[in-house]
Structure formats: structure tokens, C-alpha cells
């Protein structure tokens, strides 16, 4: 198999069609990059959200999930004494907000059942 173009200049020029071909491939690259970057950023956001959620529920001594062993082992690692007061207060606020959002979700689910 041989290359069709003799040199780089003719590859770029493409007999006058270079502008069209290269801009089409450029757009293709853009869409490909979007399709890779967008799910990775989505993943980062969701994972850190869930991590925060799990940690704050652990520091309050209860767990959003069903896994009691996990929350007990983590909170017994000395969470209570090491944290400063302000830090703890902030965590509580976040946890309360999350509790609210969970309540809203539960309400939504009930509405769905009625319908």
C-alpha cells in the first residue's frame, strides 16, 4: 500500500479540497473529545458527591445505606474527638441539607406510586 500524497504540502492542500476535508476531520475530533471528556467529568462530580454524602452520614453516626458495619467501623476510628467544633458544625449542616433532599426524593417517589 502506498501513500496517495507525495508530500506534506499536497496532503494539506488536497487539490483545493483541503479546507473542507480538514475542517470536517477537525469537527470529528471535537465531537470525539466531547464524548470522552463529558462522561469523565460527570463521573468525577457524582463520585465526589456520593463520597461527601457517605462521609457526612458517617460523622453523624447514621448511614444512608443499609451497611451498618461500615459506618460503625469508620466512626469508631476517632472521628468524634479529632474534628474541631467548626468543622463538625459545617458537616452537620451539609448532612441536614442532604437529609432534606432525601426527603424530597422520597416524597417524589410516593407521588410516582400514586400516579
Amino acid at each position, binding site marked *: *500500500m*502506498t*501513500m*496517495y*500524497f507525495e508530500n506534506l504540502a499536497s*496532503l494539506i492542500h*488536497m*487539490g*483545493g*479540497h*483541503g479546507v*473542507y*476535508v480538514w*475542517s*470536517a*476531520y477537525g*469537527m*470529528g475530533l471535537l*465531537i*470525539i473529545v*466531547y*464524548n*470522552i471528556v*463529558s*462522561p*469523565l467529568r*460527570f*463521573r468525577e462530580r*457524582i*463520585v465526589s*458527591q*456520593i*463520597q461527601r*454524602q*457517605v462521609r457526612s452520614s458517617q460523622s453523624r453516626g447514621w*448511614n*444512608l*445505606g*443499609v*451497611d451498618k458495619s*461500615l459506618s460503625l467501623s469508620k466512626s469508631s476510628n476517632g472521628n468524634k474527638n479529632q474534628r474541631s467544633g467548626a468543622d463538625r458544625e459545617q458537616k452537620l449542616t451539609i448532612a441536614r441539607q442532604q437529609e432534606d433532599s432525601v426527603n424530597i426524593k422520597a416524597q*417524589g*417517589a410516593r*407521588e*410516582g406510586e400514586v*400516579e
Partner: protein
Amino acid sequence: MNWTFFHKLGSPKWFYEISGKWLPWLAIVAALLMATGLIWGLVFAPPDYLQGNSYRIIFIHVPTAFLASAIYVMMAFAGIVTLVWKMKLADMALKCCAPIGASFCLLALITGAIWGKPTWGTWWVWDARLTSMLILLFLYMGVIALRGAMRNTNTSAKACAILTLVGVINIPIIKFSVQWWNTLHQGATLKLTEKPSMAPEMLWPLLISIAAFYLFFTVVLILRLRTEILDRERRTKWVHKTVLARQEN
């Protein structure tokens, strides 16, 4: 018949675990095929005797246009499964397909316009193929918007499934538009029932690019689906374990 595989397939946890194993391999094969197909098409394939070098756009245009329709059909199947069996994973797939399909549909329209300028002398004409493809883009955007407008997961799943199923009427219109109406758009390059009209040195890179784009779609769909699973199952034990394990690494 043994239906356990069907139930397993519907289990988000099972899918999350198995897809994590496949993903790197699929990604490597997709990247290799993509590089092979596109470089072959750009540099090694001979020019077209009529269109010259502008036809090289085909190696992006045809795979993405194929995919844009195929993804929509897939979403319609997912919609049926959502409505009939209420399978959670099917609705997640429907949701995750939409932005990917929309982006490919947009790319097919843009590359088509760029190809149209040197070939037809115009960026755009309101002919059957182009218009029906634009409607497909609007359908994708409609599904995405509808999802965003509803807070309740169950209701939005049902509504999106119905909208997708209504829109599927557009797919045969896209497919047969070049036969039913007089259009500027050329007829199908590849047909399942006939021998290809293309020379093999152009056909091979095209087939490789099509395979590459399908695999690429599979990879990015799995990427999105895995996050969607974590999001919706965020109150389960296994998701907590998974995200905490990531943190410690």
C-alpha cells in the same frame, strides 16, 4: 428457556462489575480501529474520479450518520423494555444514549454541509434526507430536554420512553428518503443485499471506520452508564463501598 441472564442484565450492580472489566479492552480496540480507518481514508485511499479529495469526508460522515440512526433505534428498544418490564438499566441506557446520539447526529449534519459545499455548491438544501436528519437532531434534543424537565425518575422514564417511540417513525423516513423523493443526496453507498459499488481500496477504510465508531459509541456509553448507575444506586451498600475504595487508592 433460562431467563437468568435477562435478570442479570437488568441488575445495575452486575453490569457495573462486568463492564469495568471490558472497558479498557474495548477502548484500546476502538482507538486502534479509529486510527487505522481514518488515516487509511485520509492518506492512503485514492481520490474519487468525480469528487476528487473532498469525498474523504465520507470516512467520518457515513459512520456518524449510521450511528445517529442506530442509536435512536437502540433507544426505542430500551424504551419498550422500560415500559413493559420496567427495567432500571434500560431507562439508564436510554438516558445515556441521548447526548451521544445527538452529538453524532450534529457531526453528520456538519460534515455533510462541509461536503456539500464543494460537491453541490451549497452548504444546505431543504431536501428529504437533510431535513429528516435535522428532525432526528431535534428529537434527540427533545428527549434530553424532557428528561431535564422532570424530577421524578419513574415519570421521566415513562415520558422519555414514549417520546422516543413516537419519534422512531422518522428512522425509516431517513433511510428511504433518497429513494422516495428526488434528493440531492446520493443513494446508499453500502447495501446489505448487493455487492458494494465502491472500489475495495475505499471500501475497506470505510468499513473499518464504521466498526471503529460503533465501538467508540459502546465505550462512551458504558462510561456514562457506569456513572448513571452510581448516581441512581447511591443509597446502596455496594455503591458506598465502591466510592470509598476509590478514595483510598
